[in-house]
């Protein structure tokens, strides 16, 4: 599994690039999930978000997620996780996960597991800055 499969970047993410890394002639299905910055949270207009991560530990969490997926869904092909850091505005992609599998049901299950586990375990934080000038760290 090449290093480019899990990465943090301050550049805009590309679904094309993420997909291309996950695609593989043995996988009949590639399921991709893109998380984006929403315009509103709890009824409050969002201006922008600041993302930060403890990268080396987060990358180990990604590797653990990947090992778990290969154990649970053995026909899994490639797993790609790209996470953006820094300042993001509304509509921008913060994370893209792509999982290939010969069986599409397993690709869906594994991709969903990956994003759920990432959100629970990976040391990544975001601070929400609202249009009204207020800001706070997002919990959960």
């Amino acid at each position, binding site marked *: 599994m090449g290093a480019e499969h899990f990465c943090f970047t301050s550049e805009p993410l590309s679904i094309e690039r993420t997909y291309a890394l996950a695609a593989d002639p043995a996988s009949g299905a590639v399921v991709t999930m893109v998380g984006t910055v929403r315009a509103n949270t709890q009824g409050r207009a969002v201006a922008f978000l600041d993302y930060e991560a403890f990268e080396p530990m987060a990358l180990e969490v990604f590797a653990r997620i990947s090992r778990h997926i290969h154990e649970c869904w053995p026909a899994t092909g490639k797993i790609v996780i790209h996470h953006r850091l820094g300042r993001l505005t509304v509509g921008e992609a913060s994370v893209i996960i792509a999982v290939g599998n010969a069986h599409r049901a397993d690709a869906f299950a594994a991709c969903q597991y990956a994003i759920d586990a990432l959100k629970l375990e990976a*040391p990544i934080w975001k601070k929400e800055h609202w249009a009204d000038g207020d800001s706070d760290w997002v919990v959960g």
Partner: protein
Amino acid sequence: MKIEIKLFASYREAFARDELVLELPEGTTCAQIQRHLAGERPQLARWEAVVRYGLNRRFVAPDTPVADGDELVLIPPVSGG
């Protein structure tokens, strides 16, 4: 013993820096370090019940003792993705 503490999110903001190096007595636990930091920066007390600990890049229990040269990160609730 010397412990390197990496600071992120509200911890980084509270100390206005990325990292602290603390001189601590042998056997100090992760939870004791959190209480020490919250004593210096009361705004960190809100995380007391929910903070997790990354010791040398693995999650550990709050009562885990740290050792000389360890790298500790205090992990308030995460919100990646």
